[in-house]
Every structure is written in structure tokens, then in C-alpha cells.
């Protein structure tokens, strides 16, 4: 309440002051204040998603193809190059290279395989847990390459294990290996848990 000079303000002025306050509050209160638990509905919208079991499982499988360390010859070095920082296989969740077949999903067959070594490779494949995939990398893994006619060389890994993707080259460059792995990922996305591999 204001005092102008010696005069007290009148009762009408007090009433007008009160009315102005009420009008201002009314103008500011046109919408109800949200209930304290109103955020729940928006959070559920933001955090639930609907998909198929196959899609979710295949997404996980394609995003974590762990490779077994079982390389027999020089294609290995292209794989090492691929897994290093320049080509960066970690982009596909594959940087975890496993020394144990029990923890591996992917057998990349890199290099010439001799019959003397063949039982060990077959055994490693058999020890891998399902689901498992095989990539034949380079000419020797596909067909034995230039050593195909040798008495000592296995003419292609598909004599021993089922091969999903063949990557030609001698050796394939890291780009080719990545392209082959992308082909395998496409293949995995089409699989269903209801089908036996």
C-alpha cells in the first residue's frame, strides 16, 4: 500500500489493486499444472521398442563376430592389417580375437593348409560353439591356389569345413576382407533361430 504525501489511499484504490492481482493470476493459470508422475508416459514412449526376436538376435550376432586365431599362412598379415587402426575392424565389433575356439564365432581360413595341419584345423572348427561361420580368405583357402596340385596341400578348406563366404585374392586386400565380412553379415541377418544351420 502506498502513501502519497499525508493522504491515505482510498478504499476504491485498494479494491482496484486487488482486482488487478486477481486478473493477473487468472491469466497465468489458464492450463492445469501437470501431475508429478506425468513424465512416465513420455519415458515409456522413448525407451520401449518393438521388434522380432530374430532381428534382435541377428543384430547381436552381426555386431560381435569374434574371430578364432587359426591362420596358416601369409593371408594372416592382411587380417592383422585389417584389425589394426587404419582399417579398424573394431567398427564391426570384431576386434576381440579369440585364442580359444569355445569363445569364437568366426573361422577366417587364411592361407595354405597342408594335410599335416588339416586335422588340427578340423578339430578347432568342431570345437567352436554354434552358431559358427567360416570365411575362406584368399586363393589357397578357396582352392589350394598355386599349390593345388601339391602332394602336401589341401585343395580348398571346403574339403574339411562348410564355407559361408569366399574372398578371392592373393592375398585379398583389407578392403576385400571387409567386403567379404559385410557379405557374411548380410547372410547372418537373413537367418532365423527357428532354422537349423
Amino acid at each position, binding site marked *: 500500500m502506498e502513501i502519497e504525501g499525508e493522504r491515505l489511499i482510498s478504499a476504491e484504490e485498494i479494491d482496484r489493486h486487488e482486482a488487478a492481482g486477481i486478473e493477473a493470476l487468472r491469466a497465468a493459470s489458464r492450463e492445469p499444472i501437470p501431475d508429478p508422475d506425468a513424465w512416465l508416459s513420455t519415458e515409456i514412449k522413448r525407451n520401449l521398442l518393438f521388434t522380432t526376436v530374430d532381428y534382435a538376435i541377428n543384430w547381436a550376432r552381426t555386431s560381435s563376430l569374434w574371430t578364432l586365431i587359426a591362420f596358416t599362412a601369409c593371408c594372416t598379415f592382411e587380417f592383422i592389417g585389417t584389425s589394426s587402426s587404419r582399417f579398424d575392424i573394431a567398427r564391426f565389433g570384431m576386434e576381440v580375437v579369440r585364442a580359444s575356439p569355445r569363445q569364437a564365432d568366426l573361422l577366417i581360413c587364411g592361407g595354405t593348409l597342408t*594335410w*599335416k595341419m588339416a586335422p588340427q584345423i578340423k578339430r578347432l572348427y568342431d570345437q567352436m560353439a554354434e552358431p559358427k561361420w567360416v570365411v575362406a580368405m584368399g586363393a589357397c583357402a578357396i582352392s*589350394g591356389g598355386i599349390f*593345388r*596340385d*601339391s*602332394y*602336401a596341400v589341401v*585343395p580348398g578348406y571346403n574339403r574339411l569345413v562348410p564355407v559361408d563366404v569366399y574372398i578371392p585374392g592373393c592375398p585379398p586386400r583389407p578392403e576385400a576382407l571387409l567386403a567379404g565380412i559385410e557379405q557374411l553379415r548380410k547372410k547372418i541377418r537373413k537367418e532365423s533361430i527357428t532354422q537349423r544351420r
Partner: protein
Amino acid sequence: MTTELSISDTAARLKAHFGEGVAPAGDGLATSPELLPRVAGYLRDTAGFDFDFLDMMAAVDYADRFELVYRLLSLKHNHTLTLRVNCDKNKAVVPSLAGLWQGADLQEREIYDLFGISFNGHPNLKRIVLWEGFEGHPLRKDFKDGAYGAGD
């Protein structure tokens, strides 16, 4: 730097002990399978030669004979010598040098595996690169790999 021992000087020095059994042959000395252990032992243990290391050994398949080539190295004097031994194709047996130089052990097994030359007195003479039961010896000129190649 490693030096090659003079062939004529070495041959003359060995002649005093082994007579006509050791003779110059190309870039090295040739001897017979019978004399090989004695010649090799002499080269290893005699002061001035001191060949304490078998650098490498190899086999060659000629039309009429097998030839074994030993490269000897003295780490003490840093000199080398080539020793050659001919052996009969029908009776391919040579004394083993694994007792003189341990390095001969695996190399003699490899030659046994791939050439089919036997080494008398070897402690563990069996195939090393190929598997037991493999037919034939692949580095022989007359080896036929029909049973093992892809066949196309």
C-alpha cells in the same frame, strides 16, 4: 667376414690322414660314406679346423647317384668348408652325424622324409614333414604324386 678354407690346402692336409679317401670336388671336398664319420670328426676336433657348427646340409638327386652336401662352419675361426658325399641310389644309406653335431638331427630326418636316404645311427629316424604312411619321397625326381594331388 667368413672365409672359405682353401680347398687344395685342406685336401693336402687331410690326405696325410685319409689317403685317397678325401679329394677336392668342385668348391668342396668329396669323401665316401664309409669315411664320412671319421673325416667329419677329424674336422670338428682338430685344432686349426675346429668346425664346431653344422651350418646346413642338403641332398641332391642326380641321374646316377644321390649327393649329400654338408656346410661346416667354425665359429672360432669364422671359416667354412663344403663336404660332399656320394651314395648309391639302390642302397641309399649314409652314417648319421647327429652324434657330432646336434643340428644334423632334424635335417637328416627331413632328408630321410623327402629323399628316402637312411642315416645309420640316427637316434630317431622317422618322417618329420609328412605323415607316417605317406607313399614315396616327394623330392626324388621319380616321385609320382598322382595319389595326393587334387587331380585336375
